[in-house]
């Protein structure tokens, strides 16, 4: 007889508890604790930063304060995200010996019942390593993993709908141009059940189907359960700890100089001081090509109106250094532009810096 999985369907609960609940189950885990799957929705929108991030650096705290969007931190890695009740969070808290050893396999394993649930609604989803779920090339969700207490935790969500505008707004970004690139990136490369279906599906129906797939795919019975007394005590303690300024503003040190839209799409910005002046590029990268970009700075580009043409010429082109060199040289030859103190090498350096920033995080 296979050990049952305890299902805790926590419903819509205060935002903080939608984070602390799985931490509490993990920290309170004893050898007797069953492997647990939690389904939960926060009752208000909030921003959640990754374990090692610095909140002030990642989140536009003034905006969040003005719009009463609370901010908290999780003990799972990754970047800042906007969470609300249009996502049903799937949080698995398992004994280490019951999860796949390799993290990427763990993500594939966690994604399976989510993808099967989408399939029931006619939405064909696939796993995109390391930790994304995609529908026709668009991201419908990501996953995170952590060792917390004696447990291994994997979290994700069933994406009913998503507020891309607010997501792009709550992030701290260098300028509005960058923000627009993030927003357009989210619009173009993210999807949700609502977008695919033309309407938001009933959350209860989504949950019912998910639970059935969970049981079938993990080949273990799923039994509804509740938090134990010990887990509830841990939950209260964590609610307190996660509410402190020390917890929210602890110095993380993990700097993300590029924002991930999905596994193949990033927005980054970098500046480079060339002999002819400062070059600043905001770039959206898709599968190693220039998806969109904006160039600014204090260098001379003559004739000036050709800068827009240069941007247009670069869109859709490969970022592979040799190919990019050709692309840039072609433009210089054809458009007869003059950029004193800025050579092809300097452009390649700026793009190289952006690629390095992305490579570090992918």
């Amino acid at each position, binding site marked *: 007889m296979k050990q049952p999985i305890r299902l805790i369907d926590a419903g819509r609960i205060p935002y903080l508890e939608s984070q602390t609940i799985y931490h509490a189950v993990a920290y309170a885990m004893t050898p007797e604790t069953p492997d647990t799957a939690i389904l939960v929705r926060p009752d208000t929108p909030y921003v959640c930063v*990754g*374990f*090692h991030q610095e909140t002030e650096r990642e989140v536009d705290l003034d905006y969040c304060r003005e719009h009463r969007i609370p901010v908290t931190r999780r*003990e*799972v*890695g*990754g970047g800042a995200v906007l969470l609300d009740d249009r996502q049903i969070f799937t949080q698995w808290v398992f004994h280490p010996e019951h999860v796949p*050893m*390799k*993290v990427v396999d763990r*993500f594939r394993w966690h994604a399976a019942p989510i993808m099967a649930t989408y399939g029931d609604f006619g939405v064909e989803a696939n796993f995109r390593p*390391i*930790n994304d779920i995609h529908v026709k090339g668009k991201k419908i969700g990501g*996953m*995170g*993993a*952590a*060792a917390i207490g004696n447990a291994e935790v994997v979290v994700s969500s069933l994406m009913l709908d998503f507020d891309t505008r607010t997501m792009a707004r709550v992030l701290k970004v260098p300028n509005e141009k960058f923000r627009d690139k993030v927003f357009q990136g989210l619009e173009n490369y993210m999807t949700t059940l609502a977008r695919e279906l033309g309407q938001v599906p009933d959350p209860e129906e989504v949950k019912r189907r998910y639970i059935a797939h969970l049981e079938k795919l993990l080949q273990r019975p799923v039994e509804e359960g509740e938090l134990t007394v010990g887990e509830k005590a841990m939950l209260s303690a964590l609610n307190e700890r996660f509410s402190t300024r020390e917890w929210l503003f602890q110095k*993380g*040190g*993990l700097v993300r100089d590029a924002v991930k839209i999905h596994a193949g799409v990033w927005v980054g910005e970098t500046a480079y001081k060339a002999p002819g002046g400062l070059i600043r590029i905001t770039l959206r990268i898709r599968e190693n090509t220039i998806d969109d970009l904006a160039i600014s700075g204090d260098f001379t580009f003559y004739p000036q109106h050709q800068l827009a043409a240069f941007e247009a010429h670069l869109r859709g082109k490969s970022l592979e250094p040799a190919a990019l060199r050709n692309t840039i040289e072609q433009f210089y030859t054809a458009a007869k532009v003059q950029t004193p103190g800025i050579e092809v090498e300097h452009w390649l350096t700026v793009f190289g810096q952006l690629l390095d920033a992305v490579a*570090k*995080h*992918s």
Partner: protein
Amino acid sequence: MSDVGIVRGCKIPRDLYYSVEDHTWVRTNADGTVTVGMTDVAQNLAGPVLHAKVKKVGLTRAKGKPIGTVESAKWVGPIKTPVSGEIVAVNEKLADDPQLLNRDPYGDGWVVKMKPTDWDAEVKALVTGEEAVQKYKEKVEREDIKACDHIE
């Protein structure tokens, strides 16, 4: 016999003590302190480390408690100390270059130095020499841990 055992490409130096379950190693130093770090197998499981945060000097930690946390592309987890004691030094270089944990897990990628409080008793739970290599071999095979990649 070589000084370094190899298990699926992962290095297991025979002169160190190991907590195989927690993937940590301990080196005894002449001044009575011990150096603690993550094993080659651990860095391989974690993948390229993006960030490492190490506890502070002066902190006393019981065996099994975290002396730091690491974040790789997609996983966050603690480094658990295999011995109880006071942290007397931390590897400051990890803040700027966390991938030292990947490149040189037994050398420049050390995590903390500790003054152990119960070494004589706690060393009995650790393994060293050929026994460590064998124990790691069993674990790697039992859990089908992938072969080590070494990033330069």
